[in-house]
């Protein structure tokens, strides 16, 4: 599906709408005229060389990064300066980071219940029951009372995914979730993500795991120098790149 077709296809299915988004770090133009629409339940993999703006774009969606021009709407709420809007959007968007970012002073269970208790004002018992449910889904309920420092990287990342899921988000953002992991731990995290994808979660995932992209992505976005260079189905992206830039990128990540 081309960008033009996407634009004409305006309907209420679009859970994220990014229009002409531009961002600068001081004088440096990091994101250039980004246009992106994401349907509810769609799985998108974003790839590109480092410095291409893929993480920055993803982080704009829950306002970890500000942008200077353009508009961004998440689940019908427009991203503006208002704290109310920002908090409303953040409640709908879960995020998983490269370095897990679990809270080291809290136990696993407390990491998971903090958001539900303080943001969603759920009773502690209910929050703990939900937390245990998600810990079982990521297959580490036995670690509930340990601290993050006692877990392996793969386990920590699965806890981080469970922590986001406890907030019952509409959208999950993954910012290079497996880049900081030992090779043997990547699979356990990807398995959880694949399961999540199969359940119909809307996902945006910055990753270089091409196997994962082929398996679950509805659409792969290739970025370079702050713009979206190509977006298409995984088959088209990998087998039939339209630009020399993507061809070069693919040859470099696949040929070794």
């Amino acid at each position, binding site marked *: 599906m081309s960008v033009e077709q996407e634009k004409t296809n305006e309907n209420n299915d679009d859970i994220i709408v990014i229009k002409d988004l531009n961002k600068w770090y001081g004088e440096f133009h990091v994101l250039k005229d980004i246009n992106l629409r994401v349907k509810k339940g769609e799985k998108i993999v974003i790839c590109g060389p480092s410095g291409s703006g893929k993480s920055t774009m993803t982080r704009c969606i829950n306002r970890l990064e500000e942008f200077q021009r353009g508009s961004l709407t998440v689940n019908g709420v427009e991203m503006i300066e208002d704290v109310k809007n920002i908090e409303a959007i953040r409640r709908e968007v879960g995020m998983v*980071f490269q370095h897990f970012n679990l809270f080291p002073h809290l136990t696993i269970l407390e990491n998971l219940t903090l958001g539900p208790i*303080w943001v969603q004002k759920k009773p502690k018992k209910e929050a703990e029951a939900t937390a245990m449910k998600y810990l079982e889904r990521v297959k580490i309920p036995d670690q509930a009372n340990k601290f993050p420092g006692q877990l392996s990287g793969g386990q920590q990342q699965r806890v981080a995914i469970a922590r986001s899921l406890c907030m019952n988000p509409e959208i999950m953002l993954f910012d290079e979730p497996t880049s900081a992991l030992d090779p043997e731990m990547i699979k356990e995290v990807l398995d959880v993500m694949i399961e999540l994808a199969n359940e119909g979660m809307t996902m945006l995932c910055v990753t270089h795991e091409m196997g994962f992209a082929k398996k679950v992505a509805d659409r792969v976005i290739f970025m370079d120098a702050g713009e979206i260079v190509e977006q298409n189905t995984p088959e088209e992206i990998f087998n039939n790149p339209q630009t020399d830039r993507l061809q070069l990128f693919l040859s470099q990540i696949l040929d070794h």
Partner: protein
Amino acid sequence: MKEFKPLPDQPAPNDTVGPIHWVKDNFFSSAMNTIATLLILALLATVVPPLVDWLLISANWSGTTQDACTKDGACWVFVIAWSKQFFYGSYPTEELWRINLCVLMLIGVIASSQLLNKDWRNKFSIPAFLLLPFVCILILDGSWIGLEYVSTDYWGGFALNVLLAAASIIVAFPLSFVWALGRRSEMPFIKSVSILLIEFFRGVPVLALFFMGSVMLPLFFPEGTNVDKLVRVWIVLTLFMAGYMAEVFRGGFQAVPTGQYEAADSLGLSYWQKTLLIILPQVIKVSMPNILATFVMLFKNTTFLLIIGIFEVLSTTQTALTNSNWLGGHSTEGYLFVAIVFWICCYSMSRISASIERKLDTSHKN
């Protein structure tokens, strides 16, 4: 396929472990090290026996006047005779139980923080610790709770040093945290006010602050109000402490990775939830050694109050030394006693803080 079997662990070679190796490794590892060890042993052999003799063996322990000090050693009779004043100042004798009660409560709260589990520590020990100085002020004063009123003119001795230090740090703690937050703020007004306050109270010598407190501070109070001298000292100590602690906290803030802020933001926590639930506990953890260092400094600085005529322990000691019945030159014993009391307190605090650090350490790295 061949099965992979890990090799079994073997004990370390004999000559790298054990007490003999430890002594060899730490005291006699090289020629220079051996010479240093021998020199230090010789020095200790000449210094320690006479010191022990003066302090303990030939020391005078019993009696009530300085005439009882007949032996060559230290005249501890002086310290024993004045110990009530040293610890309690001139607080009325029949009301001393109030001070003892406060000390007992302090010990109880500290013990509870060491013995209770995390849940109860948060629910009981921390609030109790924060309230204790104020409860003690009410008990010591007495007039608000139906006890006999004891004017602050009679408060003194080591108890006053402890009370002032504790009451100051507890108010300084939240104040300095807010100042440190203000210094990191992106709002120019709040930021510059915070910097101004921090740098003023950090940059002015504490003695100058004490004089300002006793001379200048009354000018800021409404006319006709007579603010107690101790309250003014309390304010000065608090602000001084807050200036230092704010910088300690700022260092702590810088040690918290940005990922922690981002994770808190992405969960949708509000600014204050993020600051108090996620950032503050981690800031306190990394700042613990420096918080203690600042507190020890403040605690010792309370002895400077003798200069503005507050009867804390050092000023009581000087009074005792100039008493006409005790003009036998007991200053060594007097000052040594004060030094030992402070050292015991500061050392205990550093042990307690080390144990808190261990409790807060959740990294569990081997």
